């Protein structure tokens, strides 16, 4: 099994550990780390899993620039059913463009993105958004945390990833969070999501061909179940 990690040195918000967790879960897999100025491994090969995490807005634009020449190849791999996971604000690179209202509240910029999906991101750099989220996807309860400068709009419902039970979806008021097509999963959830959601991680890896036992799986499940019970407790405020 080959796993391509895109732009790992730019990761933020604990997403470093999503990449590390994949390594721990798949000790026999080959990991290829692609940096911002490298030609992606997927350009000429077909990895089993591609992962990309949250990064600064400046590095996000560099990531788009790095991936743009291989946009069509990425589309092809999505259609082929290659497993991909995009977390945090890496969701933004998948839409058609990113519209940014800069921190001064006046200057506006629009940056072209990969256009893999008919949606776009809108960022307001002087307004930080965060929320907790409880949802369901792929038969798994999913819990996580969002912290970001904006949202994705105009995503057709059919591409929704997580059905939201508590918290905010891909934009405030949306019933779905993230993007899903074939085996591509993208979500604004950070956390790191793979560590925090062992049932989804097992589903994702099994579907990619690795039916694995997670590291210290019993402890992982116990922590997850405690968190899940808290999130499902409607008397507890502050979630959402």
């Amino acid at each position, binding site marked *: 099994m080959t796993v391509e990690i895109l732009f790992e*040195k730019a990761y933020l918000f604990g997403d470093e550990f999503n990449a590390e967790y994949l390594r721990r879960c798949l000790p026999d897999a080959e990991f290829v780390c692609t940096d911002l100025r490298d030609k992606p491994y997927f350009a000429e090969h077909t990895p089993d899993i591609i992962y990309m995490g949250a990064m600064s807005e400046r590095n996000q634009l560099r990531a788009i620039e790095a991936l743009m020449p291989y946009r069509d190849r990425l589309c092809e791999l999505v259609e082929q059913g290659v497993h991909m996971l995009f977390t945090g604000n890496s969701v933004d690179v998948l839409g058609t463009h990113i519209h940014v209202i800069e921190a001064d509240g006046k200057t506006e910029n629009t940056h072209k993105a990969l256009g893999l999906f008919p949606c776009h991101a809108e960022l307001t750099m002087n307004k930080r958004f965060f929320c*907790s989220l409880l949802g369901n996807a792929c038969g798994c309860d999913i819990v996580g945390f969002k912290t970001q400068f904006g949202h994705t709009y105009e995503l057709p419902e059919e591409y929704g990833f997580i059905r939201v039970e508590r918290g905010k979806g891909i934009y405030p008021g949306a019933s779905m969070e993230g993007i899903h097509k074939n085996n591509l999963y993208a979500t604004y959830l950070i956390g790191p999501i793979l560590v925090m959601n062992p049932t989804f991680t097992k589903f994702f890896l099994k579907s990619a061909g690795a039916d694995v036992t997670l590291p*210290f799986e019993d402890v992982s499940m116990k922590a997850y179940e405690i968190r899940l019970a808290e999130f499902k407790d409607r008397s507890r405020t502050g979630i959402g």
Partner: protein
Amino acid sequence: MLRFIFAFILCKASYAALRLMGRRASHTPGRIALHFCPNYIHYLKKPKHILCVTGTNGKSTVCNLLEDALRSNGYTVLDNKFGSNTENGIAVTLTRGVSIFNRCKYDDCVLEVDERSSPRIFKNIHPDYLIVVDLFRDSCKRNAHPDYISDLITSAVPDDTVLILNADDIIGSRVCINGNNRRIHFGILPLDGEAAGEPNIINDAGYCPVCGAVTEFGFRRYHHIGQFRCPVCGLQNPSADHIVTAIDREKNEMYATHNGVAYTYPLIQASTFNIYNEIAAISLLLELGLSPEQIAESFKNIKVTDSRYYEKQIGDVKFISHMVKGLNPVAFSVVSNYVKQIDGDKSVFMFLDDSVDIKTGSENLTWYYEADLERLADDSVKHIYISGFRAEDMKYRLLLAGVPAERMTTFHEPADITEIADFSKAPTFIMLFELYLYDEQMKLRKALEEKIEAYGRENK
């Protein structure tokens, strides 16, 4: 102007009333004033020199050094030492600094400025000097990332503010990089016997901030602090004007050069963070016209008071209580490293449930996974007690960090530590508590000290 006068009277009156009630009044009077007059700070008369200090870590220490040195050299100094470092707190501080006729009573004003609030603060305050101690990751909810904070500060600083920057910080040293500001840099050479830092999970300069190439560090002290070089575009740290060249821990001396000339200062505290703090303060004091000798003299009796740290020897057990700033992974890494470096075996009690975070959702575990908790897998850490609603999550993080399961105990109620802790496991017992749990920590500290005393009596 009428709005200002109204807000000014309200601010002065509410400050006096709150103080009479025994409150700190460091925030609310400012909020009231700014509510009625958004430009309130602009209209307040200011001291002759406004010296601001911002950055992620070290702001308070640098401010304390500046204030003490200036006062001991005869200056009158207004400060926000006991107040908030946000816009509201600075409004209170400046109001304290003027008479009821809005006449300023001070020569200098030393302001600690919250880096996230800097655009709002610098809109109405014109700093003559600004020290940016360093820029690291802090709470991802509030501060996003250092690149963002650097941009925020850059967007807010007036062109004629003199910047005093950490040359070893490739992110912080690029604040206002395209501006016209005069720039002064401080740094620390690799010190005698100083080894490059252990690997950190966080390095926010993994890619060059200019060209995106993978970067190289000649000497990496920790995280992105060190001698940075981009092999593609050639970007490197600016050269420092004020450089610490060596320290002598036994003599408590620090040796520095200023534009090539060597001087000796008292070493206020030997941790690397505090050496940076000291040379940052010296850099500004020299700019203000103090001589190296005057600075050295005024630093002689200064002690860095650390409200985050408490230590007491109780019989055979050393008890330490150390604050961990919640959601701040770099601070958590520093504390973990410190725990590892304490001589001898130790037990650790983690009391980290964040009473503020629980109100907005407690599931934010990002900082657990950005902090270098691998340091706690050291063999000298004999046992880790983990309390609270995130105990199993922390246990999982520590398992992934390499801490054996048999060295951990989890439990829900923090107060149960007094029954669970086994003081025979190690001669040092360390409680790590979260910033917002200070009051609860004080109660637990007392209970633990009593338990340790009882343990001592039983084992005599």
